[in-house]
């Protein structure tokens, strides 16, 4: 994503795996996650990232019940770690 190099933590949401429960949104201390207007493959409003402001706290990762829906990149992450 443009403007996000490794100095900036980020959260990536796989929209098709999101079931729209909203737990990540309410858990985010920075309020950088939001419910998107469009519907995904399953008919849910997926969560989305505002694009900046993530601190890499991982709260959303541990609140999300879907194993692969959220990936959190902490500050100083290495792209190779992503499988």
């Amino acid at each position, binding site marked *: 994503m443009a403007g996000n190099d490794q100095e900036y933590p980020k959260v990536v949401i796989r929209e098709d795996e999101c079931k729209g429960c909203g737990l990540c949104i309410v858990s985010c201390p920075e309020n950088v996650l939001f419910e998107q207007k469009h519907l995904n493959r399953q008919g849910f409003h997926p969560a989305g990232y505002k694009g900046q402001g993530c601190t890499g706290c991982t709260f959303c990762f541990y609140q999300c*019940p879907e194993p692969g829906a959220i*990936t959190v990149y902490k500050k100083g992450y290495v792209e190779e770690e992503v499988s």
Partner: protein
Amino acid sequence: MAKVLQKANSFYDIYERKSGMNKDITHYCPGCGHGVLHKLIAEAIDDFDIRDRTILISPVGCSVFAYYYFRVGNIQAAHGRAPAVATGIKRAMPHSIVISYQGDGDLAAIGGNNIMQAANRGEKITVFFVNNAIYGMTGGQMAPTTIVGQKTTTSPYGRKPENEGYPVRMCELISTLEAPLYVERVALGDPRHTNKVRRAVRRGLKNQIENKGFSFVEVLSVCPSGWKMTSEQAKDWLQEEMVKYFPLGVYKDESSKVETTEAKPHVFTIDNINENLSIPTRESASDKVEKKPQQQYRNPKLIIAGFGGQGVLMLGLGLAQAGMEAGYQVSWIPSYGPEMRGGTANCHVNLSTERIGSPTVSQPSLLIAMNAPSLDKFEKQVVKNGMILYNTSLIDKKPERSDIESVGIPATEIADELGNTRVANMVVLGAYIGLTGILDKKTLFQALPKFIKRNAMIPLNEKAIERGIEFVQK
């Protein structure tokens, strides 16, 4: 700590076992607690590097399909029986990490006794007990853990203690037992609580990795669908209402008092199986049997039949007992009607230098017929070139078959001459060993006290055996 938090390696990339479309997502409802706990367990399995020796037992309930998702060994157990299945696996494979993953309907209701007994035995397994206070999968019925006043489809006016009793608190119950090592109740919810769940999951697994004992982690969980709430409302209700009935905390933790050891896999060899079962190592029976009868008499399969009271069963028992002492593999199975005397009786006997596959005899190589109905009934079953020994005192005809050897002995008359018709069985037994040489007289005499209870009868029985031998050798 990893810089990237992503889907754990202990999950399959694609859930191939899942039916239908969407094999990249779980079957759980939005906001379900199972997904979160699955993630915490999978992450711990990755971090402890135990994936190749972890076996997860899935229950009946929503998490019945845990084997869709976890890339570990999986077994799905009958309702409530996960602790029993886990016990079996752990005892057979002590080095494996066995996880029993169960819901509240499964663990506290249907399998209530299973978990108590496994805990009481202190099985070295880890149990994750997901308590969401209802039966989720079947549509939100009342469970043992449903809290007082909680409305479910089967308690529409709220759970009333006078009618349905009080919620069952499993951590409290289990922590009263002596054997469990670690019992803790945690709750999903906000990040702080979820972090405590994460820690408890890891402690539960670590106790097993260190081979310490039974770990029980109760996780209070949400069921937004069953509770008819949004994910957020459900989270709040858990924290505000459920926690009141199910106080969080460590109920028991003895892990610091137990030393870390390494669980070693069993090695299954014939020798150590015999040792475990206390079976003495035996030389092969064929080396031990000194007397080798002629080919056609070896490894006989016998049916011995007659009236009840003729000593048919004892004849078989005596033969098997003496055969065993001579070094044969033996078997003896009685079959008799309700009558003690006057009914029909028969028994099956095997004497073999090889292992005996089945103790029942459907095609005898030898029939001992003590009366006429027995000859009629079993003659046809005797194998070709087999043998029939029959009691001519009570059978006034000869066997019809010509492809077998048949020998008649007036057993009852000889016994009567000795003073007691009831030793006719021993006359026939003597005739049998005299004819075939399967046993020698000495071995048989030594075995007599083992199956004849009254010592006073032994000399008479010895005499009867001798008369049988004399008769056939004349």
